[in-house]
């Protein structure tokens, strides 16, 4: 057990810190995605290697070799300093790595530089109303018409569709082929004629996502990534990697601390909430699990750094992390009692109403990105080597 990152990395950490000390004041704080402040900050980060760190210089990146601990240190220090770590989003986190793997040289030079600089924003068109857990059942069609594909259909859960310049989108180009083989991966501007974006209000009362409708949307045939019919493989070049950080243990730890703070602050019947023995027990029980998940995350990081295999360990974070977070938020509502019901514009709501919002939002995350039931299938099959569901009789 060696919890230190070692002298090389501690030196690197110092570098990051001194960058933050020097430039932190220039970081955006809530400015819009298109603001000059955000774009300038992104350029500065790339220049110093704190964004687009491992993207080759040829495509506008910093060109460093991948190093998990360096990335982690950057993330840790920016978070500790509460300084924006630069732009994220599905263009940067999903499309760029995909293009690097399977894009043409022209696609790389055209799309990667403006994307990493934040000048070209993307949304992802994967899920459909009839294709959720069974993503490969998607039905949005793309039919060849001369030099174009003509796209018709509907996508859902498209989180930044209302902001994006472009979309990367899975469509069915070979309707006769087996389910996973008839799909292609297209890129096209959101300004193309025939695209309608409708905000999708969810249970929190906010439109965190959108629906996107395509009616005879023309996409030049060259705007395909990979071969026709290989879109499923293209999408999976990186889907297999991290699923973002659904149920991120460090965020959960921060929420736990906020909960502890709340329970020290609020009183009921003249007693601080934290002094209620029942609440103490449940809080400590949550703490055990939050701590275990945070340490589990360190174990996963260590495995990556040391190339250690722990196939099971990687598979449980989403399931456990989202369920734990949902439960933690729900407990906060319980300790608040009737006051925990306050919502919307209610001035009495605690911590900005975030307990109720997150309680619901994390139920959404239990469902999204592979429901808990799908996660359990995966854990049992890939983690424990149990057999897949047998094929059904026709």
């Amino acid at each position, binding site marked *: 057990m060696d919890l230190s990152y070692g002298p090389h990395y501690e030196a690197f950490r110092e570098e990051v810190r001194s960058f933050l000390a020097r430039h932190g004041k220039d970081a955006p704080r809530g400015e819009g995605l298109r603001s000059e402040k955000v774009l300038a900050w992104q350029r500065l980060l790339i220049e110093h290697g704190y964004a687009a760190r491992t993207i080759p210089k040829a495509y506008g990146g910093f060109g460093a070799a991948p190093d998990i601990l360096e990335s982690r240190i950057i993330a840790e220090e920016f978070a500790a300093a509460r300084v924006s770590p630069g732009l994220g989003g599905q263009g940067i986190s999903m499309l760029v790595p995909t293009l690097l793997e399977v894009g043409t040289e022209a696609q790389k030079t055209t799309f990667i530089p403006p994307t990493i600089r934040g000048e070209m924003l993307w949304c992802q068109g994967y899920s459909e109303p009839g294709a959720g857990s069974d993503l490969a059942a998607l039905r949005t069609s793309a039919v060849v018409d001369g030099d174009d594909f003509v796209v018709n259909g509907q996508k859902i859960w498209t989180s930044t569709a209302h902001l994006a310049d472009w979309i990367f989108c899975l469509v069915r180009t070979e309707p006769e082929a087996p389910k996973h083989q008839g799909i292609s991966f297209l890129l096209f501007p959101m300004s193309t004629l025939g695209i309608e974006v409708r905000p999708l209000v969810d249970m929190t009362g906010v439109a965190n996502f959108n629906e996107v409708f395509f009616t005879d949307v023309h996409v030049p045939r060259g705007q395909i990534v990979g071969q026709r019919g290989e879109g499923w493989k293209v999408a999976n070049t990186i889907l297999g990697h991290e699923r973002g950080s659904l149920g991120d243990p460090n965020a959960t730890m921060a929420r736990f601390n906020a909960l502890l703070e709340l329970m020290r602050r609020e009183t009921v019947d003249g007693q601080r909430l934290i002094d209620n023995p029942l609440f103490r027990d449940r809080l400590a029980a949550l703490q055990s699990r939050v701590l275990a998940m945070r340490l589990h995350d360190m174990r996963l990081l260590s495995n990556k750094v040391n190339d250690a295999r722990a196939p099971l360990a990687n598979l449980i974070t989403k399931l456990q992390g989202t369920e734990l977070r949902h439960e933690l938020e729900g407990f906060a509502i319980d300790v608040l009692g009737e006051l925990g019901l306050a919502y919307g514009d209610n001035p009495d709501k605690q911590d900005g109403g975030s307990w109720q919002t997150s309680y619901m939002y994390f139920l959404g995350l239990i469902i999204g990105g592979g429901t808990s*039931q799908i996660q359990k299938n995966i854990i049992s099959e890939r983690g424990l080597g149990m057999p897949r569901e047998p094929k059904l009789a026709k």
Partner: protein
Amino acid sequence: MRFGLSEDQTLLDATVRRLLADQAPLNAVRAYADGSDDHALWATLCELGLGGLLVPEDAGGLGLGVLDAAVIAEALGYHVTPAPFLGTAVLFPRALAAAGLSEDPTWQARLGAVLDGSLRVGVAFPQAGGQRSRDSVTASGESVSGTVTLALDDVANAYLVASGDGALWWVEASASGCAREAFETVDRSRRCCRLTLTDCSATLLSRDLGVLAELRAVAWVILAADSLGAGRAMLDKAVAYAGEREQFNRPIATFQAVKHMCAEMAAELEPCTALVWYAAHCQDHIRDEALTTAGHAKALLGDVGQFVAKTATEVHGGMGFTDLVGLHYWFKRIGFNRQAFGNPQRIRAELADLQGW
């Protein structure tokens, strides 16, 4: 021997449910959530007699009991119906009866006004869910002062107000010194308000601590029945959705995981029916068990409701999380019922005390 509903109760239940399905579909709930009022719907329900359900027959009501009210509450919960049922139709006549005022002419007149929906009575019990430092009402002579953070019904004509000493007061919304402002909660199928009372004139209903305890118990039963109905609706919706929704070329209802989620919801909800019925029955007929059974019903439905709300949403997958199917109205109503008038943890502490443990 019959442990269950009478034929009359079954008929009343069916009638109300038919009316709600017809006149109060989800669209009507959405409209209420978006700001329209529930007056017309409540008037219609009053035509069925819901306003006077517990009002004595000689005051023009149906003279029924808490079990009948629980049957209605379950139906209202099933349809997430906005209605001033708990305060106006249940607690108000119950308070008068408990305070021995049902035959007093002034109060009889007010009971009469309840029948057609023209009088709405809200509930402002600051101690209901545990007294916060910011939340208290004190009485001095014929006036009350203080704040009730969460009072039921933002457009009531009058409120039943509990003061810190356990006395029960009648406060007219129009009285000088009575101010109210919206208290928005997650549950948009019912509107609440914060009541601020400043030397506000009030009429004493009772100083008997037992009266307030009894009213809280009845409220527990009604909220439990409401959650039972809402939970059952969520289960029914989950089963129906699972039968329609296909993934991997088959209805998701054929997946054992989905079937078991539905079975678990059913298995948790089913015994709650008997408990809610019995707790309601006790309010009128088994004095000794009235408080404890009401507490058990409220606490258990708080937990079972929460489990069902989460599980049914999961069965609906992403659709359950959107506003498109509106499932969240039930989710939030159950969430409200869990916390209002004391959440399970709090009620269980009271149950232990009540039983002299």
